[in-house]
């Protein structure tokens, strides 16, 4: 792709070569519709993106953003609709066609292979002989050109998430695409890394006149990084704005479809600024902190994974009754291991866990639950519930004693307990016998929470409690977590979303590489410093 000699004075690159009246948009989608069974993922969508701009695609989880972009990259075939690239109609039947048209996408979840080196990953899928020297040169060249420094010889599994993101970008950019699509690229990045990413995107559009589509559900990012924004809700486009002409409130309203409270705006749609302003007004909730009983104490925990890599390296923390401790950190720094530890799924090499002053044996099946630790795990499908059993059974599984007579279950007790919890926790289900799999994500999450709270826990661990939920469910979870703390339960909130932590936590600890690297109270929060700690820099 020849880089156009930039005149460097025009504010838009297209203006310089304006021989044609209005240039055709780089991408124009019209009438795109895609159904999955009864779900309409995209509903008569029109999207128009000009060359050289960063175009934001904003919407809640499930709005259809990823599906729309997969249609553009040939991974999903639309049921109907038209795709125009630079003014010409095209049919993108598979990813190869998309690549031929200069379309390249970084997916929401990375597709790198951990055991392989960076240069191997970058040339993965290449046909024919790949020569090592030139592959390494390629990585360095592309890296230099865009400011994406990464050592081509390191194994991907040893990289931080920020570095992995760079490898993904290099993998895309080396093909010199005209159109670069990024699907929620910042969900695994620290603030600083996100800002670095945005400056790379800026360079790509300004200097090389490429086009970028940036998918996000975070308002902050959209406001920061884009020129234009298209907002989707339930599969349909509901608004188009010039970024400069809009603000957080309006974006939030369009995205959710109604006014949202300041609190929800904070955690649900990622308006960090709004939250930071609030800090001044944050309640000094720490008055009696010192006197409150310690409910959970983890001391110097060390643990190793199956592949012999360290998961926890001397992690220590305490949570008091009635407080919410927010554990911030970039994904993959030991949060999952801590969640597993408190779910009796992980054994310790060294260190102790105490609940209400009593030591609990780590890794012994059911021990944490018996000691009074309730857990709403990060991935509810992995250890939170059993999808193939019924709703009532899922509500009972940790406390079979309550629904059994001797060694047999009492169907009547099983049912009445389920009915009680369903109404108490507002679970939307046709009845207690429905298979867990058939509930929506938000309701599955409610079931897990209901079961854990029904056991009257001393400590409640909630990991990524709102991931993948819609705004209504997010509001619900937020409120329940707050109530749990008010009732005196010690709450440990593990989240990679800083906004969520700032909304809920009384005290914040930062986890990095399996250990706590810093702590601060809600009132002392300094986002810069938090960001640096999350990125592993001493602060």
């Amino acid at each position, binding site marked *: 792709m020849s880089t156009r000699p930039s005149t460097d004075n025009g504010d838009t690159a297209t203006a310089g070569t304006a021989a044609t009246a209005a240039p055709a948009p780089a991408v124009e989608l019209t009438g795109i519709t895609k159904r999955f069974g009864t779900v309409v993922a995209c509903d008569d969508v029109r999207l128009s993106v000009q060359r050289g701009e960063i175009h934001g695609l904003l919407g809640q989880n499930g709005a259809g953003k*990823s599906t729309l972009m*997969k249609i553009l990259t040939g991974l999903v075939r639309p049921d109907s609709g038209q795709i125009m690239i630079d003014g010409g109609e095209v049919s993108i039947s598979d990813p190869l066609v998309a690549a031929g048209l200069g379309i390249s996408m970084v997916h929401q979840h990375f597709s790198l292979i951990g055991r392989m080196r960076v240069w191997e990953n970058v040339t993965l899928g290449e046909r024919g002989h790949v020569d090592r020297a030139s592959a390494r040169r390629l990585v360095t060249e592309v890296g230099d050109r865009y400011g994406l420094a990464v050592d081509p010889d390191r194994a991907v599994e040893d990289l931080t998430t920020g570095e992995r993101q760079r490898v993904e970008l290099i993998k895309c950019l080396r093909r010199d695409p005209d159109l670069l699509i990024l699907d929620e690229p910042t969900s695994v990045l620290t603030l600083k890394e996100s800002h670095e990413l945005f400056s790379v995107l800026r360079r790509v559009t300004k200097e090389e006149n490429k086009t970028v589509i940036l998918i996000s559900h975070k308002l902050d990012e959209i406001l920061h990084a884009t020129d234009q924004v298209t907002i989707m809700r339930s599969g349909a486009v509901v608004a188009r704005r010039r970024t400069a002409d809009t603000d957080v409130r309006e974006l939030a309203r369009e995205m959710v479809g109604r006014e949202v409270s300041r609190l929800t705006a904070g955690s649900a749609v990622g308006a960090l600024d709004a939250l930071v302003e609030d800090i001044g007004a944050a309640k000094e909730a720490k008055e009696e902190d010192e006197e409150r009983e310690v409910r959970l104490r983890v001391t110097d925990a060390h643990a190793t994974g199956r592949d012999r890599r360290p998961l926890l390296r001397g992690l220590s923390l305490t949570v008091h009754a009635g407080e919410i401790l927010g554990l911030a950190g970039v994904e993959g720094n030991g949060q999952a291991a801590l969640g597993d530890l408190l779910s009796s799924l992980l054994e310790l090499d060294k260190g102790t866990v105490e609940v209400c002053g009593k030591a609990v044996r780590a890794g012994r099946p059911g021990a944490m639950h018996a000691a009074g630790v309730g857990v709403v795990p990060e991935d509810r499908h992995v*250890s939170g519930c*059993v*999808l193939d059993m019924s709703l009532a059974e899922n509500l009972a599984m940790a406390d*079979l004693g309550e629904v059994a007579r001797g060694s047999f279950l009492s169907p009547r007790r099983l049912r009445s307990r389920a009915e009680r919890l369903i109404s108490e926790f507002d679970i939307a289900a046709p009845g207690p016998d429905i298979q867990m799999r058939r509930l929506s994500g938000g309701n599955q999450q409610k079931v897990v929470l209901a079961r854990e709270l029904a056991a009257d826990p001393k400590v409640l661990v909630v990991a990524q409690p709102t991931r993948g939920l819609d705004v209504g469910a997010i509001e619900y979870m937020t409120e329940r977590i707050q109530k749990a703390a008010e009732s005196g339960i010690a709450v440990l909130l593990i989240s990679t979303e800083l906004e969520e932590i700032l909304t809920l936590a009384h005290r914040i600890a930062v986890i990095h590489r399996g250990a706590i690297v810093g702590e601060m109270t809600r009132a002392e929060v300094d986002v810069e410093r938090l960001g640096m700690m999350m990125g592993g820099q001493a602060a």
Partner: protein
Amino acid sequence: MTALTTRLPRMVKPAALHTLLLYVASFAVALTLAGALVTLTGKSMSETAYALYQGSLEGGGSIGLSIDEATPLLLVALGAIVCARAGIFNIGQEGQLLMGAMAGAVVGLFMPGPGWMVMVGSLLGAALGGALWAGIPAVMYYWRGVNVVIGTLLMVFVAAQLAMYVVTQENLLQEDGEAGARSPQSNLLAEGVMLPRVGEYPDLNVTSGVFVVLAATVAIVLLLRHSTWGFRLRMLGHNPAAARRSGVRATVLGGGALLISGAFAGMAGGIMLSGTIGRFQPGMADNVGWEGLLVALVARNHPVAAIPVALFFGGLRAGGGFLASTGVPRYLVSVVTALLVMAAVFPAAYAELSKLRKRNKPVVVEG
């Protein structure tokens, strides 16, 4: 295509229709192939089919034989079902059954006491022998992480060797007699040690082992569905992580399921020993262990559904035996019954495989 698949659900349950079609198609293919084969070798298809029917269903004698064949199959299948519910795949029933029969023979031949007591002892011994044989791979798994499928499979071959060894050593189980005239098999059990046969009719009578097996079926159904043990077992099978969090100890529960399954297979061997064959022979397992696994597969791990499936498989075994006795070459009988077995298994296996494929789909590009 998409229009069709979205419109269908309102008319019929597509899954049920799909399964039915699959069964029809798979039996049609099997019957065509079997017919072609029979005709090619110069036999008449209708005569062959009639012989199969005669051997399995015509008259009390044949029906009794079918039931006798179905009895151990069902028992093996029940054990396999318990294991499968716990998410463990025991495929070594053929060996566990043989070792059960061997243990049953040892007790039956050498235990002193009144006949009925020896009989009960022999059955219990058989169950214990099977459990022990399944216990070895269980220990290998929970201690050393040796895959259960591989462990149980390996033990099948060890069992076959061991069985052959004990019946060729005169100081072990080999029958008494002149030095050159001994066969590799044990002595016959005493008359009083054999399971009584029930049924007044001159022709329809079955081994009383049937009642043991039916009682076991009822027990398993109740326990799986209504006991806390069954609840925990299902939880373990569906989601080991969630089970562990709720206090289920996989070693105890999963290992226990493996032992139960082994005991059932062993008991099947014991029933074959004292119910029909009367003595221990190294070849007596005769694929009952493998076919019992297939019964569980076709019944999709439902104990009640396993009853008719076991009867179908038992009928095929009885019919095949009769067919062979009419002079049709043994290999042809094997191929024809194997085709019918495959026809019954294919839809279930297909469903199982596509379930696996769905589960293993990469999620790399998920939004």
